[in-house]
């Protein structure tokens, strides 16, 4: 599964994209796995209310299932316009 990061999430984690092997059932499960890995992930995911997630380029929620999903994106609230 591909994971992509944007803005300060990308900066804290230190990379824009990575591929992970995971059995996580929901986005929240995936976050728990990532946070357990290294301090920089814990820092990036410290406050989930400050984060947004997209599954295969569609905005989603942290309790959404990951079945069939190919790309997960984490980023701060968007500031377009």
């Amino acid at each position, binding site marked *: 599964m591909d994971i992509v990061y944007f*803005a300060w999430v990308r900066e804290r984690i230190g990379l824009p994209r990575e591929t992970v092997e995971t059995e996580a059932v929901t986005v929240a499960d995936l976050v728990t796995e990532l946070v357990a890995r290294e301090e920089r992930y814990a820092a990036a995911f410290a406050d989930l209310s400050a984060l947004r997630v997209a599954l295969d*380029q569609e905005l989603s929620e942290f309790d959404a299932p990951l079945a069939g999903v190919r790309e997960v994106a984490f980023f701060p609230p*968007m*500031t377009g*316009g």
Partner: protein
Amino acid sequence: MQVRVQQERFDLGAESEAFAAGAAAAAGAGGIVTFTGVVRDAEGGGLAAMEIEHYPAMTQKALEQIASEAMQRWSLADALVIHRYGRLVPGEKIMMVAAAARHRKDAFEAAEFLMDYLKSRAPFWKKEILHSGAAGWVQAKTSDEDALERW
């Protein structure tokens, strides 16, 4: 309906003229509203540049969804969204939207709807780079999120 995500500058005058000409040719478009966003100085001043990051695989699709919804909700004659990414300096145009409709109220509402959704639902992130070298991500405003409740 047209949606463009691009690094290059766009010509507001040429875009406005072309959009108005197309909308006028379409039956019944009596009013055209445009909104143009310009890079303004940072809150405390001293902005050197604004860097706009986006999510290439998602951006075009997200903007098209927003524009399609506007087209349907207000029976627009036409709609246009142009949004830039990359490094911009103060005074440069960031983006524009345009909406054409039979009645002015629809054109105004659709343009405001497009802007409100672009602000909080289109995958762009802005970073302010100051002359001092300091840099910081622009924070989403609660008021921008609240603006969505109107629709």
